[in-house]
């Protein structure tokens, strides 16, 4: 198995945060990231694997004004499992959070990006409610680590 096939727990991951103050705020000198900084229509937030982009966070910027934060794969996996219940309170699913490589190649208009990975739940979410918890956790992890590149 090559290093591209698995995201190891010690890997640093970059996440782009567009330069929009609705995605973060500064309180008492501390940057707090909004849970909405991890919005994703497919409920699989995108990240880039640092070791596959020369540990260069600028690789993750789409625009030079974008900010970039970093997360550690093991921290993401350690945020636990989340249970989803039906309306009668019966357990339907237990979701486990993982980070998997999803290299982008030959998918125009997207540029090729061998470092691309996704933060997913297994099995996949059936609704947004469970995904909200993941976003909350990712925002807290990002707040602990701060910026790799501040938006400008």
């Amino acid at each position, binding site marked *: 198995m090559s290093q591209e096939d698995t995201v190891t727990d010690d890997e640093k991951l970059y996440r*782009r945060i*567009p330069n*929009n103050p*609705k*995605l973060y*705020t500064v*309180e008492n000198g501390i940057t*707090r990231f*909004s*849970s*909405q*900084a991890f*919005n*994703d*229509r497919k409920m699989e*937030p*995108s990240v880039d694997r640092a070791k596959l982009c020369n540990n260069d966070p600028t690789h993750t910027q*789409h625009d030079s004004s*974008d900010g970039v934060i970093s997360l550690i794969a093991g*921290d993401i996996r*350690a*945020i*636990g*499992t*989340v*249970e989803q219940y039906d309306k009668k309170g019966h357990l339907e699913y237990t979701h486990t*959070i993982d980070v998997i490589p999803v290299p982008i190649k030959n998918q125009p208009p997207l540029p090729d990006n061998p470092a691309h990975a996704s933060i997913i739940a297994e099995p996949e979410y059936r609704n*947004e*409610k469970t995904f*909200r*918890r*993941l976003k*909350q*956790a990712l*925002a*807290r*992890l990002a707040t602990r680590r701060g910026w790799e590149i501040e938006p400008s």
Partner: protein
Amino acid sequence: MFDVLLYNSGLPVKAYCPTVPPSVQILSDFLPKTSHQELEPTIWTRYQETTAEPITTLRQTILGLDGNKLLITVEDISSLRGWPANWDGFDCVAPIDMAIEHAISYVYEIHKAVFLTAALNWKTPHITANSEGDVVFEWWHKEHDLTLYISDLEVEYVKAWGVNIHSEMEEGCIDSINMFLDLWKWLIS
């Protein structure tokens, strides 16, 4: 000390005094005044009974504190109307008008509950939106996070006190103001 709830920019404002018994907390509706003589007499009397602060402080308080905080929040929510699809750079839909309307009416409701009914301090939420166009309010206090998702029909919450999504978070639907107040008390605890 008096605080003030502004319902609209410059037009009518309502004065509250959260430090006195509920029966006299709602003091008056009035337009912004320039001196204490123009204030409705009950307000001035109650002010004299409850504080020795000079009139300049009263005026600053009336024109400055919670009323302005709430007004800024309402303007912040209203500004969502101008946001395009993909405002977050991650393919979201534009904020939904009905959700924005609901969020504006809801913020008045919860501000009143916190500030007037429960006599607690109000904290301005961070206003944003999610991928589906719902309005999102976020508060952070020490290790407590409270996030509200406001759609056109309902208000849901996520509360978090750590990163473990199983043991340190809770979610649900807010179906009464008392339920929101319980969440608020938890947030600021």
